[in-house]
């Protein structure tokens, strides 16, 4: 079909202008900034609207430009990246995952270079640092594990020292169940998500290490419905993803107020642009396409397992087409790479998370139903991402089946003191009858997003026995 009906595009709806923000007689910093951004977005949308006749080809994901941008970044970065010198595994992950989404593969030499570099970032006492020789930190640990899983070869998986990783996690856990980012570092919900995510992906035993974690996370849900970085703070997209994904991975999503959360996240989609904001009354930003967008698959699971009313449309409960519209029209930089909003420069973080959000918006996949809805050119389809880990769906399965063959791993300190499990069970919030039930059911439903991963969980029950605990590991930040 050469011509298609423009009015079916979110940016070309006839009553577009009625969705513009107004000062309503009270101009403030917030409304001024909001209207400025809407003005630049409107200019882009108006351009599409005025373009007649309109062809589907006109709304195109500039795949080759983005691939070139990412391939270059994966190799060489300018001096201006010195400020990310403590986040190099992140740079690797952002580039690799974005390339994967664009269905671009690395040759064997490129894979080997990445594997070799990430191995140099791994610390002898567990976890990965921001670069060779840096202290282990949960964020680059998450990034390195995800990057290696994205490569998905036995050589890549074998880099991860699971025993020392488990020991590192055990050193970072706090008495209240949250996680410190690094030795002597800050505590917030990012650390908690990173810890839970790598533990689940690498199939480390998380019990009793994380027996208090879910109840700590629940304290981060605010009156608005989203989650904050730590209890008391404001609901925020990135932290909400961390909170809900970690709860889901711990099979404790029912501890959250999912209805209030759904209201909050649905309300973060911007009326005019179709993109997501991170917090109430803040500006749209392409990266929240993933942080907010990925909450919908997770919520879909909980809300539909309760009843059948959520999935009648075979669609997530946000405007997937409007989001794709925003990303394709406003977030592609002409020289390659994707951006936060018009006027910004591209970076690898935004390239990764805008494409991840695009993936969520295109692929509905729940139970036995999967539906593809691609806005614009047919070739705009990107690969499907896993909404809990944000690595390719197939990569998650490959990792799990690989680690299933490996010996069971417990943090040394916990395997030596099983009594801490019973002690921790007293810390569950009054809203549930024991979090330990959660953890027991975890393998059965954490990845209910796909049937295939469930099969993997079942066979995991017959996995090999534990490895002998290392000696000499001390618990500096233990749950006592």
């Amino acid at each position: 079909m050469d011509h298609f009906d423009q009015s079916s595009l979110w940016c070309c709806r006839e009553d577009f202008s009625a969705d513009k923000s107004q000062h309503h007689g009270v101009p403030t910093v917030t409304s001024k900034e909001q209207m400025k951004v809407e003005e630049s977005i409107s200019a882009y949308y108006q351009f599409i609207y005025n373009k007649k006749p309109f062809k589907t080809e006109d709304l195109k994901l500039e795949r080759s430009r983005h691939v070139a941008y990412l391939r270059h970044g994966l190799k060489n970065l300018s001096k201006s990246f010195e400020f990310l010198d403590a986040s190099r595994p992140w740079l690797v992950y952002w580039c690799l995952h974005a390339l994967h989404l664009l269905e671009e593969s690395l040759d064997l030499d490129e894979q080997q270079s990445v594997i070799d570099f990430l191995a140099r970032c791994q610390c002898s006492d567990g976890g990965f640092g921001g670069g060779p020789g840096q202290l282990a930190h949960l964020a680059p640990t998450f990034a390195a594990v995800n990057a290696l899983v994205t490569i998905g070869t036995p050589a890549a998986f074998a880099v991860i020292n699971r025993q020392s990783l488990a020991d590192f996690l055990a050193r970072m856990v706090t008495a209240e169940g949250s996680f410190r980012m690094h030795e002597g570092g800050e505590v917030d919900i990012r650390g908690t998500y990173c810890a839970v995510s790598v533990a689940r992906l690498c199939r480390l035993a998380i019990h009793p290490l994380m027996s208090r974690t879910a109840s700590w996370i629940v304290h981060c849900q605010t009156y608005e419905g989203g989650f904050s970085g730590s209890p008391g703070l404001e609901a925020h997209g990135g932290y909400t993803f961390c909170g809900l994904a970690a709860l889901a991975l711990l099979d404790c999503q029912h501890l959250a107020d999912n209805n209030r959360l759904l209201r909050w996240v649905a309300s973060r989609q911007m009326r005019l642009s179709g993109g997501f904001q991170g917090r109430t009354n803040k500006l749209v930003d392409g990266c929240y396409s993933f942080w907010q967008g990925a909450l919908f698959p997770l919520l879909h699971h909980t809300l539909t397992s309760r009843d059948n009313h959520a999935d009648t449309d075979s669609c997530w409960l946000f405007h997937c087409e409007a989001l794709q519209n925003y990303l394709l029209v406003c977030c592609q930089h002409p020289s390659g790479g994707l951006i936060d909003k018009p006027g910004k420069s591209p970076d690898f973080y935004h390239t990764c998370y805008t494409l991840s959000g695009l993936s969520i918006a295109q692929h509905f996949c729940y139970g036995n139903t999967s539906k593809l809805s691609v806005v614009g050119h047919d070739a705009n389809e990107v690969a499907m991402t896993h909404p809990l880990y944000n690595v390719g769906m197939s990569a998650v399965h490959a990792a799990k089946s690989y680690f299933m063959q490996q010996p069971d791993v417990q943090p040394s300190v916990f395997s030596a003191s099983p009594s801490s499990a019973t002690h921790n069970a007293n810390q569950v919030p009054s809203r549930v009858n024991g979090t330990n039930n959660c953890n027991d059911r975890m393998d059965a439903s954490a990845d209910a997003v796909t049937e295939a991963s469930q099969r993997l969980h079942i066979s995991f029950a017959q996995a090999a026995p534990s490895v002998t605990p290392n000696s000499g590991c001390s618990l500096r930040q233990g749950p006592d």
Partner: protein
Amino acid sequence: MAEKIDDSQDEVWMRYKDRKEWSDVVPIKQNDGPTPVVKIAYSADFEDVYDYFRAVVAAGELSMRALTLTEDAIQMNAANYTVWQYRRRILEHLKCDLQDELLFCREMIEANPKNYQVWHHRRVIVGWLGDGSKELQLTKIIFAQDAKNYHAWEHRQWALRTFGCYEGELQFTADLLREDARNNSAWNHRYFVLTRTSGLTPEVLQSELVFTQEAIEKLVDNESPWAYIKGLLMDTSGDEEEIEKSWCTTTAWCWNLLAKAVSKNTMSSNSNDGSPDDNGSDDVCNFPYINESSRNAFNGLPTDTECSNLIDKVPSIAKGCISPHLLIGLLDCIVHQLEKTEDPARKETPLKIALQVCDTLAKQHDCIRVRYWNYVRRQLQHEHRSSSASA
């Protein structure tokens, strides 16, 4: 001796490899391996500082000169948590003057207000000093540039929790909200302060409702106070009867706001019909869960017919002329009413109204959330229709 002139700052910068006092140290290069990826083209100065930093760490040197070195390394990349952590080890070991450190820290915060490491370092140092007296002022300086800076809010809440100096804090949020009533961080902080000081006692709940309703009346299309008011009413820590009464007054207040909005937008057609002060109809108000005494506690409560008449007019109001937040706030009140009502016959009208509100949000006033509002509609039908149909 090679000296490098920094063009931008006109300052003489001598590399560590050229400094006499460092001649005893052998710098350690970063080992990126034979086939590096994400290889950063470091400036020579950056490489020099970090080569010496690696050497100092490898030797475990906790000295004054190492402290200065960490400062240079931080200036070059304030996000290097390894350097900050090592710096703390040195500060502890040398028992340095922490007041100086506070000054350095403040400079770094002002230069990098969105960096995790600078704020964390500040908290560690302030914790060591046991004196949080400068912290509220520091965050105020940052809020002057960005009143929504997440790190600054986190720091402020940490200081309040740690040192408990909550006096004036409620006023502080009120001041920020007077500047910008759309500042959601300030609303959130207000909730934080109340729930950690007085708690939502009946008096506090009342005054907060007044405060928030006034804010909404000034600017109806502001999502923040709407979320806040719902937060107050959903809080389960307070007196249940008091909260129920507040739901009622809020519901009546919402209907009045809607009546105003409707009459403003339908002035030309029919100005009187359907507004709550129109007492032409003789049906009763349908708030079955309030007792008579609280029913008399407020006036202006519309009857079911009046409510229906008002809602019927909403779809004819042009998009953008009525705040979706008002409709959503009203919907929340009606849903609460439905949940508190057991008699199926008394559910009929509120359910019909709630479904109508979902419809008009989905189709006209909040189209971006069409799937969400259709979902809410189905949920309501599922939860309440069965009981209402069996009547």
